[in-house]
Structures are given as structure tokens and as C-alpha cells.
């Protein structure tokens, strides 16, 4: 078929909607850019142009060749994620960015989504034509070799973080008010372990007195603690110690000063790795069983690797960066594809029940409050609860104060006076809502809905299963990003850093979205081929 016929077959409404969304996005970004006094709207325009180029390149290669490339691309993506965890730059406590020397930094987890879409489509498109849909066994395949390997890998990756001493501020009741009587004068959190060998904890009391204690790691899970300034005393589990004492996990340490009215600092040492070896042993046993099982028949790649593990590997790697939002979105994309392939009703119900039960049990049953808090900060260190609350509060004010007509482009007080945080990235939609009002919002929501539906149409009309699954994957990516981002800015979802496609400032996801749309156009152009 000729290139010309292909271009004639391009999905014009989709292109129109995408161009319109991008144009409005740039217009909107120029307002945020003005507020921040930067040129990011031009940078975004440039990136968009680059993205467009990539998009057309992607669209021009017949998608059927992607099946062969998918394993290679997936492998590359995993390598990039691995590279990120080693060479990545740390921003706000998480490693998400891989610097390409001399050029730019790339958020590799964004590109990973494309890899996940490709590999999932590749793994799932070949199922039996007459089947009633996938079963849980089809997805999880507990006795595939990859299962225990994934478990061990996950345990090892998650287990890399070391023990740490929780630090806290102790408050003392003075009159009717709580007053902070002691707070750490050094870093907010003093990590004793991990790589650390020793740490000093210093306390300043009201006035000028100071207490000072030194922690030293002897070996895994064992520390010594000794008072380091005169008059400072350390209490372990309620007993005042003199000189060096060996600490175990879960010991409660208090640091105080003679003469000060109270012991003012308490810090339990929390175990993080204690159960990990057992899990590893368990995993090894499982692995043995799986390998034994596999060796009894002549196994194929399909029998070796469970689909869940293909998706799971990048998800875990992203999760530990840590980046909860992206990890969940990636998982959601994969599950959207699985849902489109079709789960048997019983499996669907079981899966739903098990996952809900699992989350509930974990949250309410197993985890202790400080562990929950820790999980929260571990998964999303950049936005502690207070900060996130502030973000959403300001976002709601921005959106609500737009009312029906909006305040006008460049006239939003929340935006221009910088009350709206992260306004160029996660909260870009709030800028629009403030300045263009409900009418503008309705238009944009309609446009995004149209884009998703047009993409779905392409999927439904695709000639073959692989193409359909690819498009479903891309659609799911765009959909979940749009929905989670919008729900987040209107405070119907927690703050997880998920950008709004084509709108949020940032090259990596813009490129990813463009590649995705390229894939959709690719499939749509070739719907009459065969």
C-alpha cells in the first residue's frame, strides 16, 4: 500500500483533538510561565515539536513489526530503570531522573510505560480464540519460574534500604498549650544505618543546654549508643545507661540532660529487614518447586515467564525509586489491557476481592501507625501529608474561585501570586480552571473525553488483536493519567505526582504521550490493511 493511502486513512478527528488540546495546553502553560518568570512555555513548544517528529516516526513504522521489537524495547527500558537506580539524580528524596550527559535528564519511568504496553500486548495477544477469557492462573501462573524470582528480586530491591532511627519531636504540655521542648538540631532524620556507620544526635533544649549522643553501628541490627556530652544521659527502655551499651531492634531510646526537667527525645529503632531473610528462604524453596515442575515438561518461554512478572518488574523498580503514582499507573495500564483481553467473570471477582482484602488487611491489621506513616513517606517523600494538604487546598481555591467565567488569562491570583504550588506540572489544570472558569473546564474535559473515546474507537476498529491491545494500552495510559491528575487537583484522590498528558510541563512524559499517540495513529492508519 502506498504511503499516500496511509496518510489518507489517518484518524483526522483524533489528530484535530490532539492538536487542539496541545494548543490550549501551551496557551495555558504560558500563564504559569509568566507567573514563574520563566520561559518554560517555549521549552515545552520546542519539546512538542520534537515529540511531533518522534510521533510521526513511530506512526510511519508498521506496528506489526513492534511485536518482534517488543522484547528488545522492554529489555532496554529495564536497563534504563536499572541505570536510573544507580546513576539517577535524587530530587526530593527519590531517584527518578537519569541524566544523559550533556543533553538532558530523562524520567525513565515514563518511557517504561511504552515498554510495558508493548510487552503486555505481545504476551497477551496470542491467546486461544475460543477461550472464555483469561483466568487468574493465566495471569499469575504461580509455578512459572519467574514467580519466585520476582519475589526474591522484589525483596532484595525493597530490602536495600537499611534500618534507621526514627526521630521525633517530643512535646511537653505547658499550661494549655503544647510546646516543643526539644527538637533535633541536626538533620530532621538521622539515619544511623543503611550505609551509615555512626550518627550523632544532638538535642538543643530551651535555653542553651545541649545533649549529645553518639550512635555507632556494630553490625546489622546492632548499635551502640553512648552519651557524648557531659550531663547528657541516654535511657534505653527506661534504664539510664552510662557509657557504651549495645542496642537491639525495637529498643526505645531517650536522650536527655541532667538538670533538664525531662528526658526529651524518644526514638525506637525500627526493624525493616528482620523478616526479609525468611522471605528469601521461602522464595528459594518456591523457586526449587517451580524449576522442578518446569523441568518435567519441555518448557517454552511462555511457561517460564508469567505475564504478571513481566509487568511487575518495572513496576517494582519504579515503586522503589520511590514513585508510587507512576508505579500504580503502570500497573493500571497493564490491567486495563488484561481487562480488554478479557478475564473470566469468576476470576475477575476473585481478583477484586483478594486485592481489596489484601490492602485492607495490610493497612488495618498488620501495619502499626508509625509504619503506615513510614510507608506513606517512603512511597511519596516529596509530599508529606501536611504539604500535600496545603497543595490541594490551594488548588481547590484556585479552581473554585474561577467560578463560571474564570478570571481571564494571566489574571489568576492563585497562579500569578504563586499560591498554587507545582502549577506548571501537577497542578496545571488548576491554572486553567482558575483563569478560564467552569466553561473552559467543561471544554477541556470534553476534549480529553473525546480524545480517549476516539482512541478507543481506533482500538475497537483495529484489524488484529496485537494492534488493538497496543491502542488499549496507550489509551489506558492517557486515560489514567488524565483522570488521576484531575481527581488529584479537585481533591478526590491523594497527591501522587502524575502529570496531565500534553498539558503538564516536562519533556519525558510529553515524549511518552506523543509516542503513544503515534502508536494509535499507526494502528488507525492500517486498519484497512490485510
Amino acid at each position, binding site marked *: 500500500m502506498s504511503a499516500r493511502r496511509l496518510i489518507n486513512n489517518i484518524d483526522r478527528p483524533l489528530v484535530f483533538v490532539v492538536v487542539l488540546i496541545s494548543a490550549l495546553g501551551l496557551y495555558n502553560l504560558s500563564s504559569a510561565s509568566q507567573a514563574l518568570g520563566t520561559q518554560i512555555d517555549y521549552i515545552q513548544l520546542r519539546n512538542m515539536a520534537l515529540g511531533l517528529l518522534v510521533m510521526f516516526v513511530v506512526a510511519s513504522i508498521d506496528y506489526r513489526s513492534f511485536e518482534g521489537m517488543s522484547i528488545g524495547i522492554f529489555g532496554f527500558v529495564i536497563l534504563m530503570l536499572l541505570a536510573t537506580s544507580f546513576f539517577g539524580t535524587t530530587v526530593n528524596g527519590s531517584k527518578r531522573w537519569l541524566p544523559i550527559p550533556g543533553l538532558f535528564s530523562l524520567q525513565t519511568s515514563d518511557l517504561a510505560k511504552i515498554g510495558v504496553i508493548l510487552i503486555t500486548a505481545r504476551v497477551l495477544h496470542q491467546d486461544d480464540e475460543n477461550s472464555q477469557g483469561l483466568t487468574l492462573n493465566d495471569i499469575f501462573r504461580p509455578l512459572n519460574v519467574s514467580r519466585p524470582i520476582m519475589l526474591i528480586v522484589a525483596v532484595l530491591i525493597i530490602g536495600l534500604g537499611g534500618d534507621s532511627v526514627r526521630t521525633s519531636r517530643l512535646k511537653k504540655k505547658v499550661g494549655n498549650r503544647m510546646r516543643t521542648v526539644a527538637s533535633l538540631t541536626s538533620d530532621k532524620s538521622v539515619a544511623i544505618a543503611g550505609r551509615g556507620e555512626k550518627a550523632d544526635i544532638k538535642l538543643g533544649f530551651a535555653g542553651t543546654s545541649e545533649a549529645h549522643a553518639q550512635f555507632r553501628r556494630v553490625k546489622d541490627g546492632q548499635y551502640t549508643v553512648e552519651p557524648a556530652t557531659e550531663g547528657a544521659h541516654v535511657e534505653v527502655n527506661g534504664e539510664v545507661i552510662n557509657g557504651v551499651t549495645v542496642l537491639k531492634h525495637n529498643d526505645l531510646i531517650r536522650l536527655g540532660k541532667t538538670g533538664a526537667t525531662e528526658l526529651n527525645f524518644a526514638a525506637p529503632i525500627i526493624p525493616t529487614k528482620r523478616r526479609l531473610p525468611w522471605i528469601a528462604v521461602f522464595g528459594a524453596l518456591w523457586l526449587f518447586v517451580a524449576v522442578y515442575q518446569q523441568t518435567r515438561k519441555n518448557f517454552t518461554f511462555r511457561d517460564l515467564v508469567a505475564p504478571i512478572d513481566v509487568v511487575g518488574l518495572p513496576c517494582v523498580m519504579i515503586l522503589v525509586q520511590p514513585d508510587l503514582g507512576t508505579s500504580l499507573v503502570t500497573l493500571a495500564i497493564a490491567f486495563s489491557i488484561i481487562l480488554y483481553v478479557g478475564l473470566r467473570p469468576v476470576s475477575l471477582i476473585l481478583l477484586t476481592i483478594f486485592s481489596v482484602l489484601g490492602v485492607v488487611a495490610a493497612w488495618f491489621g498488620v501495619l502499626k501507625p508509625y509504619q503506615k506513616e513510614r510507608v506513606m513517606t517512603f512511597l511519596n517523600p516529596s509530599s508529606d501529608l501536611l504539604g500535600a494538604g496545603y497543595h490541594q487546598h490551594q488548588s481547590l*481555591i484556585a479552581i473554585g474561585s474561577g467560578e463560571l467565567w474564570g478570571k481571564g488569562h494571566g489574571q489568576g491570583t492563585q497562579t500569578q501570586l504563586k499560591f498554587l504550588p507545582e502549577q506548571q506540572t501537577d497542578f496545571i489544570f488548576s491554572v486553567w480552571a482558575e483563569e478560564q*472558569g467552569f466553561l473552559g473546564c467543561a471544554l477541556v474535559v470534553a476534549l480529553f473525553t473525546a480524545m480517549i473515546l476516539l482512541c478507543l474507537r481506533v482500538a475497537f476498529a483495529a484489524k*488484529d488483536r496485537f494492534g488493538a491491545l497496543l491502542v488499549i494500552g496507550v489509551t489506558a495510559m492517557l486515560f489514567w493519567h488524565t483522570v488521576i491528575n484531575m481527581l488529584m487537583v479537585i481533591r478526590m484522590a491523594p497527591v501522587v505526582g502524575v502529570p496531565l498528558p500534553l498539558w503538564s510541563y516536562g519533556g519525558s512524559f510529553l515524549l511518552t504521550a506523543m509516542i503513544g499517540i503515534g502508536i494509535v495513529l499507526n494502528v488507525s492508519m492500517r486498519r484497512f490493511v490485510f
Partner: protein
Amino acid sequence: MLANSRKNTTRPILNSAFIAVVVVIFGAILARLYSVQIKQGEEFARRSLGNFVQTKRIKHSRGDIVDRRGKVLVTNRTSFDVVVTPAFLPNTRQNLMRLSRAAGLDKVEAKRIAVGFWKTLKEKGPPVLLARELTAQQSQKVRLMQEALEIPLEAVPILESNLDTEFVAYDAYLDPEHLPSVTAVIRRLSSLLRYDEKQTKALMGNIQRRRGLSRYRDVVVRSDVSEELAARLTSKIEVGDLPGVSVRQSQTRYYKNGKMAAHLLGYVNELSPDEFEKKKEEGYFLGDVVGRRGIESTFESQLRGVDGLKTIVVDSKGRSQDSRFASSLRHEVGVQVPAKSGRQIVLSIDSELQKVAEDAFPGRAGAVVVMDPRNGQILAMTSTPTYDPNLVSGTFDKAERKRLRSIRSLRPWRFRAIQEHYPPGSTFKPFTVLAALKKRSTYVSEKFRCNGVFRLGDTKFRCWKHAGHGHVALVDSLAQSCDVYYYNLATRTSLDPIAEMAMDFGLGKRTGIDLPGEVPGIMPTEAWYNRKFREGYTGGAAVNVSIGQGAVTITPLQLAVAYSALVNGGKVLRPQLALRIEDSDGMNPQQFEPEVVNTLPLSKRSMKAVRKGLNWVVNHKTGTAYRRRLAEPLVAGKTGTAQVAKLGAKRLKTEEMKWKVRDHAWFAAYAPVDDPEVVVIVLNEHGGHGGSAAAPTAMKVIDAWWKQKQLRAEHQNARKSKLKGKSG
């Protein structure tokens, strides 16, 4: 064609389910947007307004207080406060980390450097090594970072390493002396303010205690510093040596003449939190000053102006914005109400006379009142000992507090002219005479014999002159202050007519002057004695009261009012301090007219006799104040020597007694004799004899008043003749 790719079969139910999920979720988002933007839109619009609109108060300035000739007594002056905003102090930890990173150090090394830096800073040691053997490129990086952080060049010295290599290498150092740090800033500030170790530490603690938002609130380090120090600090701040420190201008009440008329003017200081709770509704804010005592207190509501309002647009950090966008917003939503300064109060006080009266007063404690008997205006009113309101307003000056504590037995806070009451002694005698004359007018010519002692029953009442005065008539009794004459009058008149007459003159009653805290004193009646004492009223009480002893106590101001009434034809006036209240530019004056409280129907004959007696006190050679007379103008008056303690068997001279038990010296005077224009009351607490311890002061005041009057008349004549010359 893919080998095993399946054809994509259409499955309508699944497809519809996908579409439905998309539409429902986007629909939910739209619904939420509708609820937030349309239903709660107004509420959120209000909140967004609350975010960026801040209303700032423009402080008003308090009204001035001027004397009768427009001379400023109290005004405001600009003062300078040194403040520190903890949030704007340099963030040394961050700077160190960034510099370390620029020098290519890892976290652990950076921490080690930081520890070394703090230690050196504490010990005031030499610069610390940041990094050794940097390449030119690396050192350039450090330089760039140092510039980006706005750290002075000398804080990060970079020197060429002395190594025997063919490559040039550099060593970078950190100089704690110059690298901006809280410690360095505070140390520099302390040395400028001449703080000692302890004060520095206290300041440091004060700053470090601030957490969170309160770090943006200013800490006042020292208020009201000298202009010179303010200038020195400002220049340092401009150079960037003191980040986080600023000099703030504010208004301070200024009492131009220091201690002069301190009690009368009062002072101001800040509202206490309790008072603030009560006065919130009147528009007071915490930190506002309020008038205490004196005129400052009486006319608080007039002296206080109205604060203005100014809208400012702030960004999320609370910084005031002045971009085009911000100013257009301010235009749209802002208000601008200028502050209204307080009203000016014109007092009847003549500051020259006030000064003379204060300077002329010889005693440790006492009061002088100068009043115009024609209209009740107070020309001067003093109280000794006194304080400096400049040192008392705002923060109480330590030295002044110490001084006032040392004389606290003298009660320096009391305004003796109106807040203390004393036995009037012989200055009371004219009123006894008038009461007696009212009962029997023949006393004008009747004589009583004084042999030094008067017997009533078993009690002996002595005249001050042991030898006695012989036969004494009315005029002589006043001139020589013969007590026995009055004992006779008292026993014949009884107490109540005397008390009634005295009270008609305003003795033993509040005068109603426009000052706070006036006390009434005591003018006892027979009923009063019956109520207060078990033995009830006896004739002895009347005898004692007749010479201003016993239970009768009055304030110096009451005596001024009474003597004014004696000489102005019986008009008892309400003493008046405020002549008018006007705007600071003199507009909208509100005049206070003289107020007659009581007009006494006194016979001309008796008045003439009494005034002759008072004239003789000064101008007849038998008079008790004859030695103090003036050539011009002719002064009349009455001395008083009020006994404080019961006399012992032996009479002591004043100098031999303890101060506390000495007599109060009084002198009540008026001048000129024939047409009095001024009444002067002098009370010298425990001063001794009225003729020697009080009269000289009164004479000095009257002399000054007279000279001033002459001078003014001359001026006026000169001006008149000049005008005439011009017109002619």
C-alpha cells in the same frame, strides 16, 4: 502479517463497558468541577481574595499638647528600633552544603567540613580548608556558586597550592569571619550595640526559639536607638553585612521639657493584654499606646487619632507585590484610608510660669498652683518630686526606675496639687472669719484679748505666739495670724457654719478639674465628728478647725479655687486646664468656657475687711509675710503653718525636728491687691513656717508673672504704635 496474530473480534458488551467507564468518570469530574466552581465558587473566590489581600494599618500620630501661647509641650518624634527577622538570617547550613557540592565533595565530607566550620566559628579560629588541589575548572565552579549564593568574596578564599607539580592547583578555604552565618551576624550586631556575652547569648536564644511562621515575625532587639547608631546600622545593612537585621522607624511620644509639668501632662505606654481585651472594640490594637495619668489620660479619646488602612497585595510567601498585575489588583479590591492624626490640646498652662514655679520651689515635696481668679484657668501647677515622662513612656528606663524607687517614701507618682490633702493651717482663717461675720457682722470691729492661751473647759489651746498678741481685731488677727482670736470666734459660732462656709468655697470637695484621680479632702462637720468619734462633737473640734487644724484637710488646688472666690466677688470656679481642642492644623476648635460652680452672697463690708487683713499679712509691718513683700505689684496673702505632729512639752525649732514631723508650710497669695489677676498657692510639705518656706516661692512666681505681663504690655504698645505709625 503476523504468524499467529488473531483477528480482532468485536465484542460489543466489553466495548460499551469501556466507553461507559470513561464517560462516567469524566462525568464525575465535571460534576465535581460544577460543585466547586459554581456552587461553592463564591466561597472559594472569597478565600482566594483572603489569600492575597492584606490590609495594613497606617498608624495615626497622637495629638500634640501645647501651652496657652502655642508652645509645644508634648509631641511625637521619630525613633529607630533595631529588629531581626529570623527567617531572613543567612542559611549557613545550606550555603555550606552547596559550596561543598560545588567543590566536588560528597555528603559525608561536606558534613565533616560543616562540623569543622561551626567549631572554628565558635572559637573564632582561622579559615577552614574546604577542598585541596582543585583544578582551575573546579575552583571556577566554587566561585560561581559563591556568587550565586551572594556570599562575599573574602568568605571563600581560593589560593594557589604550593605543590611541586607542573599543574596549577588551587586550595579553597572557608572564612567563618566573613561567610554569612547567624552567629556572625549576631556577633556583629552585638558589637555594634555593645552587648556583653550574656546579652548576646540571650538574643541568640530568642532568635533560635522561633519556629515555623513565627520566624517571619520581627524580634525587636533594641528600641529607640540613637540616630547615629541607626545610621551606622543602616550603612552596614546596605553593604550586606547584616542580613536579616533591619532598622525600623516608629513614633515615640516626646515630652519636650522633660520633667516639667510631668504630673500634669501624664505619659503614655503600651496597652496591657487585659486592657486590650477591654478596648478592642474602641479600635485599639495590641502594641498601641494609651495615655496614663494627667492630660494624656483625660483627653485620650481626643489625642488618639484614627488609624488608616492600606491594602497590599502579597504573594504566597507574604511578600508585598508591586508588579503591574499586583497594582491593578490593588486598584480593583483595595482600600486606602489615610490615617487621621489626633487632636491638639491647648492648655491654659503658661510654660514660663510653670518653669519658674518648679525652679523656685525649695522643698523636698510639695506643690505650687497658679490660677487666674477671673476665669479659673490654671497657669501653672507643679508637684515635687517628679519624674521624666520620656523615661517612663514605652520601656521604663532602668536608671529612672531606680531613682524613683529610692525616693518612693516621697510618693513621686502623686500629683500633690490634687491627689494629696493636707491640713490648711492658718490659710483657712479667712473662711472662719467669713462664717462668723455671716452670723454676727459686729465681729468686724470687735476685739478679743490674746494672752497666748485659750481655755475651753479643762483644755488649753495655745496661740502660736506664747506671749500672746494682746487685744486683737479682725484685720490684725489675719495679719499676725493670732490663733486665740479664732478660738473665740469658733466657740461663738460653732463648727457647722464654718464648715458650711468652707464647703461653699469648695474646700473639702473635688474641684472638678479635667485631670484624673483628684481627691476630695475632708471638711468635717458636727455630724461628721459624731459619726467618726465615740465622744462625738465637742467644742474643741470647732476650735481646732477654725485655724485649719484638726480633721480638716484640703488639696492645694481647692485652696486656689477658694482664694480665687475670695478675690473675684464670690465666684467659685471650676479650675480649667484645657482651653480648647483643635485639629492638628488648628481647624475645628472646640472651646472650653469658664464654669462657675457656685456664687457666694458675701457682704461687701466683710469682704473688704478680710482682704484688708490679707493685704496686711504682706504689706503691714506686723504681717507674717512682711519680709517677703514685693515693691511691685502689691501682693496680698495668708501664711499657714500646719502642724503635723502633736507638740511635745518642749517647743523645738524647725531645723531640730525630724523632716517627717515638721510643719507644712503654706502660702496663699494673690496679686495685684486691688484687682487680682493671679492666685498662687504654695505648699511646702514639712517645710516649716509658711512665711519663710512657702511665701518666697509665691513671691518669685508673682514677680515673674508681673515682669512677663509688663513685657507683654510693652510689646503690645510697641506694636500698636508701629501700626499707628504705619497707618498715619
